[in-house]
């Protein structure tokens, strides 16, 4: 029994560190070349533009990195331009799960975990995952009364009304939740409740309950930077609210592309693997 447990722990540790090695490998230059950074962190740019009502204008085509352009599968990218925040400067706490929630997450087989991901099953990522784990861009059109967010991934979109409307009493469950927004100086604070329970906070099995309350804080400290900070309050699943690091998105040019996810051949293969895992249980 002990051997089985030790083996399981060893496998888990190997998987954990292998995942780090894989990420490190994919973000580095080819082994026989010295790192030469052709793509670097964008400068902040000038002051943020403002709307006629004086608030910051968040409009722009935003990339989820520091480079203002695509970085996946490219050589010569400064690691600082790949990430959205520097954990040494703004460390991000780990979610403190309720014990039952942690057990539920741990009970998922690797393939079940994979099948739960939006990038695999093509379900909408939802809020806040769209800000926390999304390698694709977001196009924002911002007017004094409304902010339209167009997410490249899966061609999803969301309107955030800025007319002071309150949160609904009995919200219909939506993938992007039901939102109410207010300004605190130059920070736009968006509170959302009433979520479809099929979304995940992050693609690591972090599910949520019907009590999920998400707070997004948007700032544009300069022309080229959009900062999004997320707070997740979900007392059924978490022991305490979780707060993200301030995630930096950078202003880019170029097209936002069509991305209807309609033909995922991986599902058939993953289902075969899931059946194999279930037989092995």
């Amino acid at each position, binding site marked *: 029994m002990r051997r089985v447990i030790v083996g399981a722990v060893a496998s888990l540790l190997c998987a954990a560190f292998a995942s780090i090695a*894989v990420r490190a490998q994919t973000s580095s230059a080819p082994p026989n070349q010295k790192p030469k950074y052709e793509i670097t962190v964008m400068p902040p740019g000038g002051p943020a533009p403002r709307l006629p009502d004086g608030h910051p204008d968040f409009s722009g085509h935003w990339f989820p990195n520091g480079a203002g352009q*695509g970085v996946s*599968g*490219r050589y010569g990218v400064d690691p600082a331009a790949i990430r959205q925040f520097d954990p040494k400067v703004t460390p991000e706490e780990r979610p403190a799960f309720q014990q039952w929630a942690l057990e539920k997450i741990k009970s998922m087989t690797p393939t079940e975990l994979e099948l739960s991901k939006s990038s695999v099953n093509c379900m909408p990522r939802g809020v806040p995952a769209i800000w926390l784990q999304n390698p*694709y861009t977001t196009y924002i059109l911002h007017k004094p009364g409304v902010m339209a967010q167009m997410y490249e991934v899966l061609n999803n979109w969301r309107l955030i009304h800025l007319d002071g409307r309150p949160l609904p009493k009995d919200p219909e469950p939506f993938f992007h939740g039901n939102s109410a927004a207010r300004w605190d100086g130059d920070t736009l604070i968006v509170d959302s409740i009433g979520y479809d329970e099929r979304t995940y906070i992050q693609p690591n099995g972090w599910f949520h309950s019907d009590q999920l309350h998400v707070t997004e804080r948007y700032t544009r400290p300069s022309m080229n930077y959009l900062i999004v900070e997320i707070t997740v309050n979900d007392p059924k699943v978490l022991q305490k609210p979780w707060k993200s690091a301030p995630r930096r998105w950078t202003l880019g040019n170029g097209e936002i592309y069509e991305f209807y996810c309609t033909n995922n051949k991986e599902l058939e293969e993953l289902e075969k693997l899931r059946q194999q895992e279930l037989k092995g249980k």
Partner: protein
Amino acid sequence: MAKRRVFTVMVAAAWAVLLAGSSASAHHSFAAEWDATKCRDFTGTLRKLDWQNPHPYFYVDVKDEKGKVENWSFQAYSPVTLRRNGTDRQVFLDNINKEVWIRGCLSKTGKTNAAAAGTLKFADGVLRQVGQIQD
């Protein structure tokens, strides 16, 4: 008792690394479907491209040591990612019926003649990353 505590700490550490790590990784897990221990080089002729979301597939006639030709399918990054890293649809189309070298990994299910492409080179010799690199 002390051993149990060490064991608990090890499990917690492993889960913490996995949970923290997955939040930083892009897209989904290669390892769930593809076998990083079964990667190899392929050389063949590019025959066909299915440019679709979430993953394009391209098809290559690969000749084995005995000269037998088999058609392989290769999965790549999403079209959006490929466009942004300079390997767009037109690059593939311009190389139809031309030689291509690919480094890819086999499916975990043992699916016949199917692999995930990591890097490739067309006739221009440029090393292109078209999927997650595993080795």
